[in-house]
C-alpha cells in the first residue's frame, strides 16, 4: 500500500529551513513524490503530519545487540525495535559478542542473524585482535571480504603500541577503518567514576582523564605514522577534543564520536551511587561536557553515537564499583538531544542530521539518506509539540537502564519508515 505523509515539513542536513511538502511513499518503499498539496487516491493510506517534521533516519556507530551470547541483555529483534523506536534506521554492531566476531566466518554468521531478524541494516564490525584480547591480530581479510565497516576491539583498547601499529599498517592496505575505544588500562585500573572531587566524595576508585587522553594521543600518533584511517569512539574530555582538532589540522585521517550522555551530563549526576550513570568512559566534569558541545558544533567531533550497551536491571542493581559499565541508548538519543539542545536552541535539526545521520553513514561507508524523490524511504515523523514520558513500556530495548527512565522529554517520534516497513506507535 502507498503511504502519503501529508502536511509535514522536511528537515535537512544542509539547511536550517524546513521544506513544507507532502511525501508519497510507493508500495515498494520508494519515495515517489515530494511536493506541496499531493492528493491521495483511495488506495493510499494518509498519515497526517500537521505540525510534524519528517527527519532522515539516524545511524548509530556504536551499538551492542548482544547477540550471540548475551541474549538475556538484548537481542537483534529488541535492538532493532529500540532503534526504530528512537528514529534510528541503521547502525554498526560492535564485535563484543560471545564469541567475539573476530573472523570472516563469525561475521558472516552474525550477518545472517541480522538479515533474519532485523528490518533495518545493522553492519557487523570485526575485531582488531583475536577474541579482543590484544595479543594477536584477528583475521582481517576474511572480515573485510564480508564487508565489515570497521575493525575495533570495542571496549578493550589494544594496549601494546607495537601490535596497534601492525594492525593499522595491515588495515591500511584493505582501506578498512580502525576504531578505538581509547583507554589506558594501567591508569584506569579498577576505576568506576571520573577521578576528581566526585570520586573522592563518593569514595569510589577514579578513572583519570589522562587515561583516555594518553590513549588518544598515542592512537593518533600511530594513525599518522601508518597513514591508517582511525575513528575514536566515545571521546569524553576537553583534552581529547583539543588533540583531535590538532591532529585533524595536521592531516591525520581521523574521525571521532561522542555519546548523548557525555553531551548532556556531568559526573555530578552520580549522586547516591546510581549505576545508570556508570559509563565507560565515565561522565566527566562540566567543563568537559561543555567542550563536547563546542566540539560537536564546530565539527571537531564528527558524529554522535549512543554506545548502546544494554544490561539487565539485576546486573546494574549491584553496587556501583561492581556493576557493569554502560546503558541503553537507541530509544532515547534523538529525544534526549532534541530536549537538551534543539528545543532550547543550542543547535538545529540540521546539525543533528549531520552528526547522527550523514556523518556516521559516511564513516561506516554507506550512502547517506535524504527525503527526495527516487530515494528509498528512510525517515521518521517527529512531533515537536508533543512530549514523551520515558517509561519501561515506552522503551523497546530489553534493558530499561537509562538515565532518562522516569523523565519526560520534549518531542515525540510518531513513526519510523524504512522502505515499505513502517514502525508506528
Amino acid at each position, binding site marked *: 500500500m502507498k503511504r502519503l505523509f501529508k502536511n509535514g515539513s522536511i528537515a535537512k542536513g544542509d539547511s536550517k529551513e524546513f521544506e513544507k511538502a507532502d511525501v508519497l511513499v510507493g508500495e515498494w518503499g520508494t519515495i515517489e513524490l515530494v511536493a506541496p498539496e499531493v492528493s491521495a487516491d483511495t488506495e493510499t493510506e494518509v498519515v497526517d503530519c500537521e505540525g510534524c517534521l519528517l527527519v532522515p533516519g539516524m545511524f548509530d556507530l556504536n551499538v551492542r545487540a548482544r547477540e550471540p551470547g548475551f541474549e538475556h541483555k538484548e537481542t537483534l529483534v529488541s535492538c532493532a525495535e529500540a532503534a526504530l523506536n528512537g528514529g534510528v534506521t541503521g547502525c554498526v554492531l560492535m564485535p563484543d559478542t560471545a564469541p567475539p566476531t573476530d573472523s570472516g566466518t563469525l561475521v558472516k554468521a552474525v550477518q545472517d542473524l541480522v538479515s533474519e531478524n532485523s528490518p533495518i541494516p545493522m553492519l557487523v564490525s570485526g575485531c582488531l585482535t583475536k577474541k579482543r584480547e590484544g595479543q594477536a591480530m584477528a583475521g582481517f581479510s576474511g572480515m573485510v571480504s564480508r564487508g565489515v565497516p570497521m575493525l575495533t576491539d570495542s571496549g578493550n583498547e589494544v594496549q601494546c603500541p607495537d601490535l596497534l601499529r601492525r594492525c593499522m599498517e595491515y588495515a591500511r592496505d584493505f582501506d578498512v577503518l580502525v576504531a578505538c575505544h581509547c583507554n589506558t588500562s594501567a591508569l584506569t585500573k579498577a576505576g568506576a567514576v571520573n577521578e*576528581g*572531587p566526585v570520586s*573522592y*566524595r*563518593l*569514595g*569510589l*576508585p577514579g578513572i583519570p582523564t589522562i587515561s583516555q587522553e594518553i590513549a588518544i594521543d598515542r592512537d593518533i600518533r600511530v594513525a599518522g605514522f601508518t597513514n591508517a584511517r582511525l575513528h575514536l569512539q566515545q571521546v569524553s574530555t576537553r583534552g581529547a577534543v583539543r588533540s583531535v582538532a590538532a591532529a585533524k589540522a595536521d592531516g591525520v585521517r581521523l574521525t571521532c564520536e561522542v555519546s548523548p550522555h557525555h553531551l548532556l551530563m556531568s559526573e555530578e549526576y552520580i549522586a*547516591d*551511587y546510581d549505576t545508570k550513570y556508570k559509563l565507560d568512559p565515565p561522565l566527566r566534569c562540566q567543563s568537559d561536557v561543555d567542550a563536547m558541545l563546542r566540539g560537536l558544533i564546530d565539527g571537531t567531533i564528527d558524529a554522535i553515537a549512543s554506545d548502546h550497551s544494554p544490561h539487565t536491571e*539485576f546486573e546494574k*542493581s*549491584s*553496587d*556501583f*564499583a*561492581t556493576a557493569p559499565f554502560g546503558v541503553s541508548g537507541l530509544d532515547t538519543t534523538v529525544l534526549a538531544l532534541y530536549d537538551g539542545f534543539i528545543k532550547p536552541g543550542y543547535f538545529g535539526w540540521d546539525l543533528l542530521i549531520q552528526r547522527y545521520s550523514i556523518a556516521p553513514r559516511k564513516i561506516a561507508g554507506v550512502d547517506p539518506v535524504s527525503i527526495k524523490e527516487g530515494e528509498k524511504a528512510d525517515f521518521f515523523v517527529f512531533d515537536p509539540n508533543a512530549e514523551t514520558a520515558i517509561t519501561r513500556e515506552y522503551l523497546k530495548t530489553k534493558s530499561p537502564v537509562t538515565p532518562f527512565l522516569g523523565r519526560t522529554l520534549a518531542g515525540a517520534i510518531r513513526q519510523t519508515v524504512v522502505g515499505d516497513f513502517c514502525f508506528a506507535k
Partner: protein
Amino acid sequence: MSELKPRKDLLDIESLSLEEIEYVLENAFPFKQLFQRSVKKVPTLRGKTVLNLFYEPSTRTSSSFEVAASRLSADVTNFTISASSVVKGESLLDTIETLQAMRSDYIVVRHQSAGVPGIVAKHTGASVVNAGDGYHAHPTQALLDSMTFREVYPEYQGRKIVIVGDILHSRVARSTSTLFNKLGVEVGVLGPGSLVPAGRHDFMQRFSSWDDVFDWGPDAIYLLRVQMERQEGQFFPSIAEYHRMYGMNSERVARMRQLGAYLMHPGPVNRGVEITDEAMGYEKSLISTQVENGIAVRMAVLHWLKPEIHAD
C-alpha cells in the same frame, strides 16, 4: 534538647545536621559513664536484634558494635561474608533478601565497595549503620574521634587537628575531616603527594613536612593506618622511607610534647610503620580512649536510629 526528626540510617557524615551530631555526642557521654559500673547494661534495646554484616574482616569494629549492642541488651548476630562466598554467586540483593527474612532491627554493614550500606538501607526497613564502605565513609569512627577530641578540649571550636597518611584510600580521613570541619575544628593533612589527592577538600590545609605541621601548631595529630598490603612500591618507595618521612618517632613526639598536642589513631596500629614503639608510650595518646568511646558512640547511635519495621 529539642526533639529531632527520627532518622532511620547512619550512612555518612555529610547528611548529618549539627543538631543530630550534638544529640549523638551528648548521649554518648552518659553511656560511657555506665562503663564504670559493675553492671554495664541498660535495657534500651531489649528484644531487638542487631545484625553485624561484615564483608571485610574487621575484628575491632565488629567487636565494638557487638559490645555496644549487648550493653543495650540487644541480641547480636554476626554475619561475616567472606569474599569467596560472594564469588559463589549470591548477589548483594539476594543477601539482602535473606536478611529481610531474618527481620533484624538494626544492620551494621561493612563492605569493600562504596555505597553498599545505602543499597542495604534502601531495601530494608531495618536501621542501617555504615561501619565502613570502600573509601567512602566511616561515620561512627568520625563520631568517636570527635567525642574523644571534645573530652580533652571542651572548648573545641577553632582548635586544630592534622591527619597524617593515606588520605586517598581512607574513609576514616574523609568522615573524620568532614565532621571536624562541621564542628569548627581546623583540619590539616600531611602525607605523600601520591596519597593526598590535590584539590579535593578545600577546607583542609595541606602540609608537605612535619616542620610545617609543627609550625602550624596542631592540638592533635591523627595518624592513619598504612595499608601495607597494597601500597608499597606503588604509592611510596618503601615502608622505611614512609616511616622516615611521615612516621611518628621520638623526635617528633618531643615536638608534640612542646605543643601539648594529643595523639590519635583509628587502630590497629602498625608499630614501626606510622609510629614507633617509643611513640606509642606518649603520655597524651588517646588511642585507648578512642576504643572506649567507640563503644559509647555506637550505643548512642543504635539508641538514636529508628527502624521502620512494622509488624504484620
